[in-house]
């Protein structure tokens, strides 16, 4: 697609974007409510509010909500929203529609850090592993970015993709080597290879949430610059943007968003690639509209998919990372085909 084509598809009305965002917010609220209702204990909606606003420590339903279902919902919200937002930034900043947070080596770095932690400091609880995973994700991203921006022209899309692929493979084999010598950490790292929102502690959620929120806020504040960047390096330079600086800032925001999401829930696939795609098809490329829609859509996707998996397969905890692509891929294909069909109809 040319820059001009993108600009025209981005020329949708502000009201249209707001309507999409409001619809997604409603969808997310319904998915959240559904997610809180599903489980072995029957909990009426009335009790949900009581458990949040006037908790009774002796009520089993309240304990279930506060210790199990709310952390699970919040994990899904943070992971889905942050991964989708990170994917949106990656796709805009690199001009690569196939970019996803994993491209910066974030997943590989987090998994490696968790394995290192369980070897160096055995007995670390899940809550402290979040910190390790975040540090690993940040370091891997920094290494990928440094390798990808070496030489003339700085961090171009192709060089970043190449550096990310190479370093991910390198770190991945370090992880595999470490696992061969210490089979005990295999269990610990399993959570960081499939992506799951199950069993996260409120402390882990509280540790990850500020990073995700800060990353999202930064991306919203800089949305005008990201939009410019998404028009391509040539156009951005012509309008006077410091492309190198803004690409680096985008990378920092991606690390904060995807790093916190991966540290908390593991590399949940699909959402970081597909949610921003769907958002762009719905509201165009203006990043100020694209980002909230992608984040809301990503959060609704993860929370909804997790709830659907629990409702459909009670008693079997299928990690949302496994189930979501199964549910999401057909829905996404249907969505894209529908848009393409309408666009073809409009052109004819």
């Amino acid at each position, binding site marked *: 697609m040319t820059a001009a084509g993108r600009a025209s598809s981005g020329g949708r009305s502000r009201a249209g974007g707001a309507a999409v965002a409001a619809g997604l917010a409603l969808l997310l609220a319904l998915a959240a409510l559904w997610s809180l209702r599903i*489980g*072995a*204990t029957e909990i009426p909606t009335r009790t949900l509010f009581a458990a949040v606003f006037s908790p009774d*420590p002796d009520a*089993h339903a309240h*304990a*279930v909500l*506060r*210790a*199990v279902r709310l952390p699970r919902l919040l994990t899904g919200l943070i992971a889905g929203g942050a991964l989708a937002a990170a994917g949106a930034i990656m796709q805009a900043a690199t001009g690569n529609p196939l970019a996803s947070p994993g491209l910066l080596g974030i997943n590989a770095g987090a998994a490696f850090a968790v394995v290192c932690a*369980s070897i160096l400091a*055995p*007995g*670390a*609880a*899940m809550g402290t592993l979040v910190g390790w995973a975040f540090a690993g994700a940040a370091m891997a991203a920094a290494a990928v970015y440094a390798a990808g921006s070496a030489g003339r022209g700085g961090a171009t899309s192709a060089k970043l993709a190449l550096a990310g692929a190479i370093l991910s493979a390198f770190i991945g084999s370090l992880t595999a080597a470490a696992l061969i010598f210490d089979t*005990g950490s295999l*269990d*610990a790292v*399993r959570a960081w290879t499939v992506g799951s929102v199950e*069993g996260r*502690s409120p402390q882990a959620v509280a540790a990850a949430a500020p990073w995700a929120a800060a990353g999202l806020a930064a991306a919203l504040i800089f949305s005008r610059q990201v939009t410019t960047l998404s028009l391509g390096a040539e156009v951005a330079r012509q309008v006077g943007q410091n492309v190198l600086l803004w690409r680096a800032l985008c990378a920092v925001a991606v690390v904060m968003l995807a790093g916190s999401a991966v540290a908390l829930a593991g590399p949940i696939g699909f959402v970081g690639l597909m949610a921003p795609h769907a958002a762009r098809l719905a509201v165009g490329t203006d990043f100020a509209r694209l980002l909230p829609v992608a984040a809301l859509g990503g959060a609704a996707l993860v929370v909804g998919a997790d709830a659907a998996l629990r409702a459909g397969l009670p*008693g079997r*905890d299928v990690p949302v990372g496994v189930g979501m692509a199964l549910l999401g891929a057909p829905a996404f294909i249907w969505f894209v085909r529908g848009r393409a069909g309408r666009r073809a109809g409009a052109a004819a």
Partner: protein
Amino acid sequence: MRRPRSAAALALSALAAAFGLAPGLAPAPASAADCDGRLVEGPMILGGPVCVPVDPQRILVLDPTFSLGMGLELGLPLVGAPLVGMSDDALRARAEAAGVESIGAFVEPSLETVAALQPDLILGAGMLGETALAMASRIAPTVLIGAENWKDYYRILARATGRGAEAEAILAEYEARAQALRARVSRAPVSVLRITTWDFQVYLDSPRAYGPFLVLRDAGVVRPPFETAQGDETLRRPDWEELAGLSGETLLYIVGGANDSDTNGRLDEVLAHPLWRALPAVKAGRAHRVDAGTWMEFSGAASAHRVLDDVERYLLAAE
């Protein structure tokens, strides 16, 4: 006309066959007519009747639980067992003291070591399957026992090695102790939970239950409805919410063993969880950690007595 084969090729194929490298079928079942030793037969013998020596001198076992523990209790001349990776340290120490060589890990035994130990009889659990039977049978007569119930397994193993009377004496002693405890055990329901690194497991009360849980039945220990089998299931994996089903007045929990749940932080997380603290037994201070080796690597009468020790320690009625 037979194809001529060189001596080297013959030796190679014999070697490959001995190490189970060539795909082979299970040996043809033996019959009483052409067995000059003892014929081991019965519905629980995998692959049909096996002809074994009357007085085996070098017995090798393929599992480090039932076969190893019962073999040692019966005083069998054991030469090898998979001692790597077993979590019942006491049993491993007994095996090593008895001169049993390790053949590697249970899931990955070294066939080379098995062959080098030159066993004249191989014993193992039926779950090892036809492939293991075919491989092991090329080295020595192999009896794989398919019984789930530990007492059935004991009797079959003892009969196959000519130790039937010894086994009956050991089992009778156990039954007497279990019966005596029955009168003293509390009638209040008891919950038993295994905490692994990745989930919770409840071994259900059922006639098909795993060894330690059959011992609880023998001793008259009552389990709550959630922990009682409704159909064929023997294991339930509750999530945090379903944990409330563990309504016993006393709770025995198993950590560690084949996984690191005792050292990797999982146990601390569970013990600090509000839903764990809400369990009636935990609230009442009646949650007790029990040994993973005893409860998860059950291996015969000694294990059964250790389970009864736990019953005596934690589950007797107040007098």
